[in-house]
């Protein structure tokens, strides 16, 4: 009935040349049309607000815009060149790598440990699962504030250690400016210098200890999520396989090592991708907890981008940082997408 009405209306315009779309349109089923109509608004919104603004940021990143007054004169790749020679950005890259590696590793290990324990068929499993998953319901800002207080050098756990008489455990946490690095005077440092890799023994090239406090907070929040992923993965492993291994005399550890872990590889990969893109973009946790930290020990590109853009007014540089961040995330995500698409095609 609907299509009949549409055909009747076109009668008035019959003298106009007929567009081939009409035929095409009519051949599409009504269901399809509704589906397309429902998709179009969100597609347009995503096209404008995601891809449009990515494009705009890319445009700004190659412009001369460095005051509050927009200036779209073409600057080429100068902003990027200056960015990579900027000491703060170099430290940010170091921190980003350190944070990502530590955070992803800690979450995977703790998450898997929790999942393996919960999977033992203990009573009240739901309670434990909820307890471990609850931190994820909290925003990073709240996590940051809570851990900021917990790890404050004159309060929190230090106070606890103080009261318990365990002064030796008191620690500066996120205010510790130490960067663990290869001392340039050591034999290794001299050897590195000799082969032209002296920068590897630079005082800033290493592990900023303050970052560990931030990793603790982030892990507290996200390891429950990894646990759930692993738990789902563990439940999907057929019990018969494990039984068969046990019948063959495998110890419980060997079952995990040779049955569970290999079968959980896709889960691990998914978890790594999800955690990895969270950690590359981390901002709120750092802002609430330690900000740039002593000597940029906990500074990250997102924070630099925010400060240089909205405090310093260097919009082009801020856009360049965003583009670098986008590229680093896509380096992680795009191979994963290709891999999973191929896998789907195979199945």
């Amino acid at each position: 009935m609907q299509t009949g009405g549409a055909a009747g209306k076109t009668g008035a315009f019959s003298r106009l040349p007929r567009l081939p779309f009409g035929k095409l349109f009519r051949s599409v089923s009504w269901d399809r049309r509704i589906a397309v109509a429902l998709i179009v608004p969100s597609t347009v919104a995503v096209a404008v607000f995601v891809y449009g603004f990515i494009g705009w940021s890319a445009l700004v990143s190659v412009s001369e815009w460095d005051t509050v007054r927009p200036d779209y004169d073409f600057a080429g790749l100068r902003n990027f060149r200056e960015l990579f020679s900027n000491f703060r950005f170099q430290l940010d890259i170091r921190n980003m790598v350190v944070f990502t590696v530590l955070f992803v590793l800690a979450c995977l290990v703790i998450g898997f440990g929790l999942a393996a324990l919960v999977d033992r068929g203990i009573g009240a499993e739901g309670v434990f699962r909820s307890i471990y998953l609850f931190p994820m319901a909290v925003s990073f800002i709240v996590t940051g504030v809570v851990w900021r207080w917990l790890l404050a050098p004159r309060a929190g756990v230090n106070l606890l250690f103080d009261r318990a008489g365990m002064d030796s455990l008191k620690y500066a946490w996120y205010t510790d400016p130490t960067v663990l690095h290869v001392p340039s005077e050591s034999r290794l440092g001299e050897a590195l210098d000799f082969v032209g890799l002296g920068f590897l023994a630079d005082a800033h090239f290493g592990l900023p200890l303050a970052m560990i406090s931030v990793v603790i907070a982030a892990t507290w929040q996200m390891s429950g999520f990894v646990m759930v992923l692993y738990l789902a993965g563990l439940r999907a492993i057929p019990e018969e396989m494990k039984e068969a291994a046990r019948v063959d005399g495998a110890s419980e550890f060997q079952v995990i090592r040779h049955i569970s872990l290999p079968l959980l590889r896709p889960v691990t990969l998914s978890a790594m991708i999800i955690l990895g893109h969270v950690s590359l973009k981390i901002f709120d946790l750092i802002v609430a907890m330690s900000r740039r930290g002593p000597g940029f020990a906990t500074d990250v590109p997102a924070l630099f981008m925010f400060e240089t853009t909205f405090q310093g007014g260097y919009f082009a540089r801020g856009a360049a940082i965003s583009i670098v961040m986008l590229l680093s995330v896509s380096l992680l995500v795009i191979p994963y997408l290709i891999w999973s698409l191929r896998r789907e095609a195979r199945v």
Partner: protein
Amino acid sequence: MLKRKSFWLISVLVIVALALVACGEEEKGLGGKLEVFSWWTTGGEAAGLQKLFDLYPTVCPGDVEIINATVAGGAGFQARQVLTTRMLGGDPPGSFQVHMGHELTDTWVTTGYMEPLDSLFEEENWKDVFPKGVLDIISYQGKPYSVPVNIHRANVLWYNKQVFSANNLQPPATFDDFFRVADALKAKGITPLALGDVEVWSSTHLMETVLLGSLGAEKYKGLWTGDTDWKSADVTKALENFKKMLSYVNSDHSGLTWDQANDLVIQGKAAMTIMGDWANADYQAKKFTDYGWAPPPGTKGMYQALSDTFGLPKNAPNPEAVKCWLKVAGSKAGQEAFNPLKGSICARTDCDKSLFNPYLQSAIDDWAKDAIVPSLAHGAAASQGWVTEINDAVTLFVTDQNVSSFQQRLAQACVEAKVCR
């Protein structure tokens, strides 16, 4: 039929005319909303701002609803970010708090976001009541662009009197004095200098007082105009002093805010702190009386000034109400109501001195006779972009303490700010 039509037409016209008359009558008084944007959220600051709001209806006729739009955070770090977004997004507040000097001029005036206020200054005869030095700083191409409400002093050394007298010490006047006193305190297990630089401006603040004390007023001013070479040996000496001072601060400084550092002085865990004179209001709010003040080493006779000002953004909603707000903020009554609570002195020269507490009275005396120099950390001396570059260099220096690379970065920042070659 026609009659009926014209009847309707006439009645509509009459109603419209009446409405217009009614509107016209209302225009005599001010109406609508006035949004005042600031980072004054705590204690005396908020109380002082409220006094100004209370004064508004007595000066400005009509019924204006004032919206107190505040964003918390010392030295306006957070507020500035919100402000930038709003100004660029075409949603300017009616009037906003901004530091006098390059922070206002380089960010908003030269880029054409502000209305000049020359007619307001003439109407109110403000050219006679504000000091010439202040008028110069708030003007661009001969026209004033903001109304200064107060004057703060950045270079003040605050100390716990009891700690000093218990150890038979005098507040240090020179750097040698300072290091001697600091060594004596350190030997007693007292932190000589409290610092809280979770927000980096606190360390930049400390550095600017050291630069001033080491270079003197003229050379210090030259740093911001390109007349003093950032690579010179004098600057190296100043940075060495800064480095040495940092060796006397509390180890957890990067986890504290400036007022938490103040608490260390109050508790007697630390002996001194170098902070602007808003610290005075903090001591009063915390009911601490046993404190003294002095210029930090080498800065006697110098007044490192900053000022909070309000201006009129282009395309601000309800500009007439904003102009009247500026009138209140610049008035004698307004400044006398605001400043004793805020803990600052009047930008006007005709305020009643007896309204102020002993510290501020001494500041008023110093303001009249000292050499006035602009503060760096608080936007008077350099553009926002330059300050953020310096802040970044300071952040790294506070931990790595490498004077030569620090000096190089500072020199580079001056070049990037297009002041040095």
